[in-house]
C-alpha cells in the first residue's frame, strides 16, 4: 500500500472533553491517540506511567467513571464525557488518600514506577471491598506488575490501608 507521507502526519483532529480529577478539560487530539499519551504529553499529568503499552503491566491504570482501566488500551475519544481520576486526583488539597499513606508507611514501593497504577488498583479494590482477604487482594492486583518489591510490601500496604479506612468509618 502506498502511503502518502505528506499527508499522513495530518490526521483529523478530534475535540474531546472530560472531567479530569474533578476539572473539566478539553483536548484536541488525534483519533488514534491513547489516553496515556494525552495525559502524559498533552496534559502534563505524568503520574500515570507507561511501561508495556499492551495492557499487561497496569502501570498506566486510572479510574474511568470509577472503574479501573488501563490507559494504554483506551483511546482519548473514548473519554468524551467521562469522569477520570488519576493518581494526581487522589491527593487533592495536599491530603493523601489512606491508600497512599499506607504505601508510605509499609514500604509498598521501591522504584515507584508501578506505584501510581498500583495505588489506583488498591483504591478501586477498597472502594468495593472493605475487608479484602488474600484472594480478593490477589485478584484485584493480578493486573499490576511490580519488579521491585516482590509484592510483600504492597500486600502489607493494602492490609494497612483497609484498616485505616475502616478505622475512619
Amino acid at each position, binding site marked *: 500500500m502506498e502511503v502518502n507521507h505528506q499527508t499522513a502526519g495530518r490526521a483529523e483532529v478530534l475535540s474531546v472533553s472530560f472531567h479530569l480529577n474533578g476539572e473539566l478539560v478539553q483536548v484536541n487530539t488525534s483519533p488514534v491517540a491513547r489516553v496515556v499519551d494525552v495525559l502524559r504529553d498533552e496534559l502534563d499529568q505524568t503520574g500515570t*506511567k507507561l511501561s508495556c*503499552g499492551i495492557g499487561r503491566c497496569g502501570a498506566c491504570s486510572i479510574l474511568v467513571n470509577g472503574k479501573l482501566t488501563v490507559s494504554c488500551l483506551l483511546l482519548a475519544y473514548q473519554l468524551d464525557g467521562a469522569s477520570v481520576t488519576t493518581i494526581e486526583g487522589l491527593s487533592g488539597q495536599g491530603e493523601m488518600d489512606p491508600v497512599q499513606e499506607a504505601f508510605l508507611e*509499609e514500604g509498598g514501593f521501591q*522504584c*515507584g514506577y508501578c506505584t501510581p497504577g498500583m*495505588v489506583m488498583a488498591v483504591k478501586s479494590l477498597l472502594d468495593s471491598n472493605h475487608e479484602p482477604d488474600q484472594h480478593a487482594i490477589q485478584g484485584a492486583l493480578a493486573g499490576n506488575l511490580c519488579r521491585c518489591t*516482590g509484592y510483600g510490601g504492597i500486600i502489607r500496604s493494602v492490609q494497612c490501608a483497609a484498616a485505616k479506612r475502616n478505622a475512619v468509618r
Partner: protein
Amino acid sequence: MKRNRRPDGKEKVTGALKYLTDLSFPNMLYGKIARSPFPHARILSISTEKARQLPGVQAIVTHEDIPGLNGFGIVTPDQPVLCKDIVRYVGDAVAAVAADSIDIAKRAIELIDVQYEPLPVLDSTEKALDPSAPFLHPDGNVLHRAGFQKGDIEEAFSKCRAVIEETYHVPRQLHAYMETEGGVIVPEKNGTLTVYVGTQHGFKDRFQLARILGMPESDIRIVSSPMGGSFGGKDELNIQPYGALLALATGRPVKIHQTRQESMRSSIKRHPMAITMKTGVDEAGKLIAHQTVIVADTGAYSTLGPAILDFAVEHAAGPYIIPAVHTQGISVFTNNGVSGEFRGFGGNQITFALEGQIDRLAAAIGMDGLEIRRLNLRREQDAGPLGQRIAETNGALDVFESAAALYREKKSASLQERPWKKIGTGMAVTMHGGGLGFGRMDPAGGRLTLKGNGKIEISFGFEEAGQGILAVIETITTEQLGCAKEDLSIVIGDTAVVPSSGSTTASRGTSMVWHSLQRLKKPFIAQLLKRASLLTGKERLSLGEGGIWSDGEFLLSYKDLACGQAEIVAETEFDFPVSPDPIDSAHFLYTYSGVVVQVEADLLTGKIKVTDLHQTVSAGPMVNEMGFVGQIEGGGVMALGYTLLEDVVMKDSQYVTENLDTYLIPGIMDVPFQLSVEPIEALPEQDHFGPRGVGEIGTVAVAPAIASAIYDALGLQVNQLPVHPETVLKSIEERGVFHGGQSSNSGAS
C-alpha cells in the same frame, strides 16, 4: 527498630515525582533509533534521503555524524554507537532520528533505507566456538577466559567415595525495570550538554559520552536519578549517545523513551550459561574435589562480560571449603543480543549449579542435605573462595543454622497433600562478594557541607533506582551526626554537583555511604563545633536536632551557625576495601544468605507454586528495616521468576519474547502471600566494615532452594531453568509419580 519512611516516598505514592522520562522542555523533539533487523549482516548502504524529506524530521544521524569514537562499553568500547559496516545483533543501531513528534520519528525510521547482506548467524556458543565460525570481533569469538586452580584435582577425584557430574543450563533473564530506558538530552546555550537519563554511574556515562561526542567531560552534565528500576541494566549506556548526537545536531532538546519492545530488543540481559560441575566427596561426606566448566553466552559485545565471568569463577565453590578446586570459564561472543550486568553478577548462575551438586551428592551417599552442608561450610576464619583473606564473619554458618532450623520445622509440619498435589521443602545457602574486586578501580567518596541556608548537605555520586539509597543516606547521616532528617539536604545523581562515589552497583552503595560518614563526621563536626564555640563562647557542645546543643540544651540553630559565613565542607575519597592478598578480582566483603522454600507441585498441570519463601541474610547491621526487607523480598521474587517463569527466548538470534505478555515476570498470584526475611546483624567484635549492601544477595540462592524443593516433592532433579510445567509433567509421567509411584521424599534432608 528503625523503620523509617523513605525520603522519596511521598512523591512516589502521589505520582508527583518526575522521573527523567517524565520531563519535557520547550521546543523539545522526539527521538527514535533505527536498529538492525538482522542478527548478523554486512551493511551495504544506508540511505536517509526519503526520511529527510518527511515534514517534521529535524535531524538524522548515522555513523558519519559521530565526532569522536564510534564505540561504547564500560570497559572495552567495542559496541558501535551507530554501525558502519557490520551489525552483530538485532538491537544494533544504524541511524537515529529527531522529529517534531514520536509518530513522525517512527515513520522516518521506516523510510531509512539500509541494504544488508545477511551473514552466518552464530546463535549458540557451540557455533561461535566452531573453528569454521566467522569472527564477530578481530580477535575471534572468545571474549574472555578465566580460571582458578588449587590442589591436585585428579588425585582428589581418585579418592572420592561418590562423584556427581551434571550440566546446568540457565536462561537469559530480562531486568524488566518498569521504566524503560529514556530521558531528555538538552543542549545548553553555552555549548554544553545536559543529559537527563538514568544510569548507575553518572561520571562513567560522562566519560563515555565525552569520548563519543569529542567534547570535554566538563562540558557534559549527567543528571542520572531517579530511575524506575535498573537492577544493573542501566549501568551501561543505552539511549544517551543517540539523544546527545541528535540534540547537538538540532540544537534542541531531544526526548527518547523506548517502548517495551524497543527495550527488549536493545537492552542487555543476564548471561545464559552452561555450567558443568563434577564434584566428589570422601567417605565422611567431606567435599574434596570440585571441577567446573562455565560457558557464558555474552552476546555481541563486551560490556561487563569479563567481570561477570570472573565473578562466577570466584564463586564456583561458594561458601564450601574444598581442598581441590579446578574452575575454567569462557565467555563467548554470539549474535544473541548483548549479555551484561544484572543483579547477582554471575553469582546466581553458579550458585544454582553448586547447590544442585550438593543436593545430588547428599542423595547419592544417603546423607542429610543439612549435614553435608554443615560439614563443609566455611568457618569464620577460613580464606575466601580464591584463597584470599576476607573480612571475617560467621555469616555462612549463621545463615545456615537459621535456615536449617526453619527447614526442619517446615519439613516436619504435617501437610495435607491432595492426591494431585505434592509438597516439597528445599533449602540453599550462598555467599556473595560486594564491590568490584581486587585490582579494579573502585573509588568511593562523599561530601558534607553546611550550606549558607543552614542545611547540612550530604552528597554522593550515587543514583536512586528504587533500591533505597536515599533512605540509607538519610538514616546513616542523621545517626552519625546526630542531626534531624529535616536538617539534611541530600544531593545525588547530578555530575554538576556531586562528588565521585564510584558506581551504584555491586551492592556497594550502603557500605560506601557508611564508610564515608565514618571518615566525614569527625572533621565536619569538629569544624561546626569550633565555629559554634566561637559564636557562643560555650563548651561541651554537640550536634543535635535543629542545631547545636550544650548539656542537653538547645543553643544555636544550623541556620544561625551558617549565616553570613563561609560554607563548612568535609570531603572524603577512598577505595572500596579489598583483600590484603593481591588476587585479581577477589572480593573482600561478603554477604551470606540461607533460603528455605516450600513448593506445591501440581501433578495434573506440572505447575510449581512457591508457597513459602524465607531468606536469612547476614550482611552486618541493618540500616533501615523497610529497605532491607524490601531488597531481600524483591530480590527473592525476581529470582523466583528466574527459576519458574522467565526466559528471553531467542530463535535464530531473533527475540521471540517481545513484551511482558510473553516474557512473564512474577505477578502477585505467582508469589507466596507472605514472604519472610530474617536479618542476622552480628559481626565479630573486631569488624570495622559496618553494614554491607544487600542489593544482590536476595536473588542468589533462591533458584537452587526451589530446585531442591521440587526434588523433595517429585524426585525430579532440575538442571535447567526456568522449570517448565512440561518438563515437570514429562518427569511425572516417566517416573509414575502420580500413579502410586514412589516420590522420593528424601530431598535435601
